[in-house]
């Protein structure tokens, strides 16, 4: 067993797990943060995307031990008692998700984009979401929601023309 400790959504968390355990497994099964999804388990679908020191990572491809001492943000870390994150609110307002399975990963990828680029073009957004597969939506309303959230986070109103 390996002892791992990391910051998850602002809290210090530790677990004792077999060394081959992935970050995703620790998040879901030791820390009970089941928002990050186990989709393909080989890094193709992006449903497990989390932020590691601010960078979007497929948690199914990272060993828990590699996350030692790092700062992890999952979908559970976005909303607070004041309400949802602007991205979550925009996704809800525009019905950007359908079955929702890809949603936690998509929103985390979008959050990483907006932290780096507060005013992304449609092509920037397509590029940022390209590692997150969605079977339901055609991505159209997701892209619109990321644009809306970006405007809100820049202090503009959501419905201003891009």
């Amino acid at each position, binding site marked *: 067993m390996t002892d791992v400790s990391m910051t998850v959504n602002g809290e210090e968390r530790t677990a004792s797990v077999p060394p081959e355990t992935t970050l995703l497994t620790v998040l879901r099964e030791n820390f009970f943060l089941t928002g990050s999804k186990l989709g393909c388990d*080989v890094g193709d679908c992006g449903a497990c995307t989390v932020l590691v020191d601010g960078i979007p990572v497929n948690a199914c491809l990272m060993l828990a031990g590699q996350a030692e001492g790092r700062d992890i943000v999952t979908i559970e870390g976005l909303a607070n008692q004041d309400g949802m994150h602007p991205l979550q609110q925009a996704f809800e307002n525009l*019905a950007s998700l359908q079955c929702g399975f890809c949603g936690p990963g998509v929103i985390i990828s979008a959050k990483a984009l907006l932290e780096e680029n507060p005013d992304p073009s449609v092509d920037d957004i397509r590029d940022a979401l390209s590692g997150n597969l*969605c079977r*339901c939506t055609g*991505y159209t309303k997701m892209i619109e929601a990321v644009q809306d959230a970006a405007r809100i986070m820049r202090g503009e109103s959501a419905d201003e023309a891009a």
Partner: protein
Amino acid sequence: MKHRGKGIGCMWYPIGFTVAANPSAATVKVNEDGTATLLTGTVETGQGSLTVLGQIAAEELGISTEDVHVVSADTDATPMDTGAIASRTTYVTGNAIQLAAERAKNILFEVAAPMLGVRPDQLEARDRKIQVKGYPQSALPVGEVANHAQNGAGTPAIGSASYNPPTVAMDPETGQGKPFSTYVYATQIAEVEVDDETGEVQVIRIAAAHDCGTAINPMLVEGQVQGGISMGVGMALEEEMLFDDQGRQINPNLTNYIMPTSLDMPHIDVDIVENFDPTGPFGAKGVGEPTAVATSAAILNAVYDAVGVRVPNLPATSEKVLAAIKAKRNADPKRVSAS
């Protein structure tokens, strides 16, 4: 060199099959606080059907969608439903819900009529009230009427109903008949860019005009069309299950079974062609599966417009498109490619 082309695909699609029993059933209960509870057997898979079904109940009862509590897909508590299949939910389940809500509403009318000093047929349900048609100042809150129905008149405002698109036997000699209750129609136009050196097809834009009867929730209709187009793009250009000679799939994962990412999807313009179908709930038909039907035809016609080649079997992968372009060049060496 890259060539642009445009292509059109048109389709019709059947809604509400009638070749076999195809029932849905629903129960609608109006509560004493003016809300309603809807029991339906159908399953929400993200397409928004429970929102649309709640809207149908709310519209019939003159209350708000947020007043309707939808209980779905619990076999202990809800009626059986033929299924969230065949683009039938809004049409068949929606009809059952409208009928059930109408029965509950008629109880409210019977109870409210003597309270308002009119006949039941002079009443309507609007703005969370039961009111006299043409005299909205003469009205009672829905909750107050529901309370009186329960505790005064002794006739709780509950309606149950089923709907089955009338089953019609097919002629056993000819196979002819009326297999579906109604139909929807759509046209999609694709604009593509084809690289004649690699065979790669990039879909630039798709304009999609869809008839779904009354669009009860236009935002959800758009979502269905956009999602269907992504499936159509995959079908046209990328998605193919490959098997070895033992029947084992050789591409059983998303590394080599390729489906559209955000980078593969075109700009999409959705045009909802409103239309009233008298057999549907508030004129609605359906929209789910039809959205994916016209896309591949439009894309492949656009490829032909761009480089003058037909790829007769899907998906039109880069390899197939390039092979078709080379075959065309070899057959007509003076013509390098279409303009």
